[in-house]
């Protein structure tokens, strides 16, 4: 289990979704195949290779995040698994089946949420849920799902007139209406306000509690860190890391010192100044992770002397220190190292970030 990060409240979200019968398939013997398998998958568009020999597998019942910057190939990977695209090489298995050849058998067992919704502009939320419910043998109750998605007040509003967050919640509810064993969520919280994001995280935790496997893509680091049992970091179509959030952070090791000050400081000069007193230390590594927010990676534990040198350096430049913390390095630091993408670009418009 992944414990909720600081500030996200208790990990056990409210029981989401209407009353659900025994959800775990009695047939799922210990020998059941993994939920998802990719082996050496290659995908090209025109002459451009967007997935290079991508391999990973998702275990039954876990929440698996594919994390990467925009354009990393996350959506392509998911759409291959959903049967929308044909790989140029490699092998794909979803619940032990081929996404395209066995599509008819697979579709009743999976749920999916596309980027951009894909919902009739004139349809009303309850109508959409009823339509999709009619496609499954034992669907959820549309009205109960509507309530669980917090869309009761918008039941009669046309999709086109819903807010961005409401659209996303309807799209998520449609992914769940068929009681899937496995759901694919492509950027499930894009365009959501912080409150709606947390509600969605609770839904996803509720799915895991019921034994549903979740594969989600995200470019929000905090989302992957707080939700996922395991994270696949994908960059430019390649898998660059695959581990639990804790292990990923442990891999990058050392503690870090973070502070907020005016943007645009000379990080190289600061790094040199900070390293000046350390016995045999090279220049400390200072990054401006987003304008005005800095992270310092140091070899040992950041001691009082280091903090003193930082404040002195800032005082010389009359730069006001507004925040200072010493602690473990975050996933953001690891991500930066793995992908080389500045976090400010990778995180995009992260709504619930530490701005």
């Amino acid at each position, binding site marked *: 289990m992944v414990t909720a990060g600081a500030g996200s409240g208790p990990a056990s979200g409210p029981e989401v979704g209407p009353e659900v019968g025994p959800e775990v398939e009695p047939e799922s013997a210990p020998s059941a195949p993994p939920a998802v398998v990719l082996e050496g998958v290659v995908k090209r568009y025109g002459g451009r290779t967007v997935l290079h020999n991508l391999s990973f597998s998702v275990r039954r019942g876990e929440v698996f995040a594919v994390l990467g910057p925009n354009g990393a190939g996350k959506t392509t990977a998911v759409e291959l698994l959903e049967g929308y695209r044909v790989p140029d090489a490699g092998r794909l298995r979803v619940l032990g089946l081929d996404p395209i050849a066995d599509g008819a058998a697979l579709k009743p067992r999976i749920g999916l949420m596309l980027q951009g919704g*894909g919902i009739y502009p*004139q349809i009303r939320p309850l109508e959409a849920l009823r339509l999709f419910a009619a496609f*499954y043998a034992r669907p959820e109750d549309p009205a109960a799902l509507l309530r669980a998605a917090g869309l009761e007040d918008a039941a009669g509003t046309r999709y086109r007139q819903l807010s961005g967050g409401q659209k996303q919640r309807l799209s998520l509810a449609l992914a769940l209406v068929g009681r899937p064993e496995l759901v694919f969520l492509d950027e499930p919280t894009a365009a959501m306000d912080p409150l709606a994001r947390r509600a969605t995280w609770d839904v996803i935790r509720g799915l895991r509690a019921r034994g549903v496997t979740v594969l989600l893509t995200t470019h929000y680091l905090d989302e992957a860190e707080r939700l996922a049992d395991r994270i696949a970091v994908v960059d430019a179509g390649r898998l660059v890391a695959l581990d639990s959030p804790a292990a990923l952070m442990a891999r990058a090791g050392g503690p870090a010192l973070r502070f907020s000050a005016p943007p645009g400081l000379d990080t190289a000069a600061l790094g040199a100044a900070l390293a000046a007193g350390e016995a045999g230390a090279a220049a400390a590594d200072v990054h401006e992770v987003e304008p005005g927010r800095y992270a310092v990676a140091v070899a040992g534990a950041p001691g009082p002397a280091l903090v003193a040198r930082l404040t002195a350096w800032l005082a010389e430049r009359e730069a006001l220190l507004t925040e200072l913390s010493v602690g473990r390095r975050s996933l953001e630091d690891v991500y930066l190292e793995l992908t080389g993408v500045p976090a400010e670009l990778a995180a995009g418009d992260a709504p619930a970030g530490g701005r």
Partner: protein
Amino acid sequence: MKTPAPPAGRAALGAMLRAQTALELRLTLRRGESVLVTVLLPALLLLFFSTVPLIALAPADPGVPPAQAVYPAVLAVAVMSTGMVSLGIATAFERQYGVLKRLGGSPLPRPLLVWAKVLAVLAVEVVQVALLTALALALGWRPPAAAGGAPLALAGIALVLGTIAFAGIGLSMAGSWRAEATLAGANGLYLVLLLLGGIFVPPEALPAPLGAITAFLPSAALAGLLRAALGPPALAGGGAAPEVWPDLIVLAAWAAGAALLAAATFRWE
């Protein structure tokens, strides 16, 4: 592996088709512009040309009210509105918005989605025919007296073939063009066929070169068949008129060709 039984967890095909058809129909009626082009416009054309006879639609026959010739033409317009304009444009936008892609990720089989759309078009046409027939009767149109059910059967065949032909044209645009291009293309073609497509003015009444081309258009064939079945006795009364066969062949060819083109070129995303 599993036996090749119907996929577990999926609803019965009949239930899916019912749900999807009902939804397509509801959404069609909810789109204001769609109701305008499918119901209001043909009714206005019927009213206008029946009360203001600008064009000699049939050989002058003082005993026959204009509505007798206008009604069949307006039925052809109604089929074109529903099959090509309304269906084509709505489908094009559904494709652009990813609706078709999303439905493709559900257990609903794609042929069923197409069938649902066809059934919804036919249902709208039933409403159109009912409304236009009531209006035509009020304007003096009278059903053909002779020949029993033969004219009605011919009209029915013409409506079905015309629907397939125009739905095929609309879906061919919707499946390969951008939504905006389909919007312009379907509306533009509609206008051209309305004026020059042999609907109100039969091909034989158009200037020679134009008329010769027009005779091979689906609009002219459809209107010609409907005129033969439901029009003035001067045209419809000849029993199994020999003119019916060329139109029937032209319309059937369009129906087959357009449906095949749509099936071959349609891109779902």
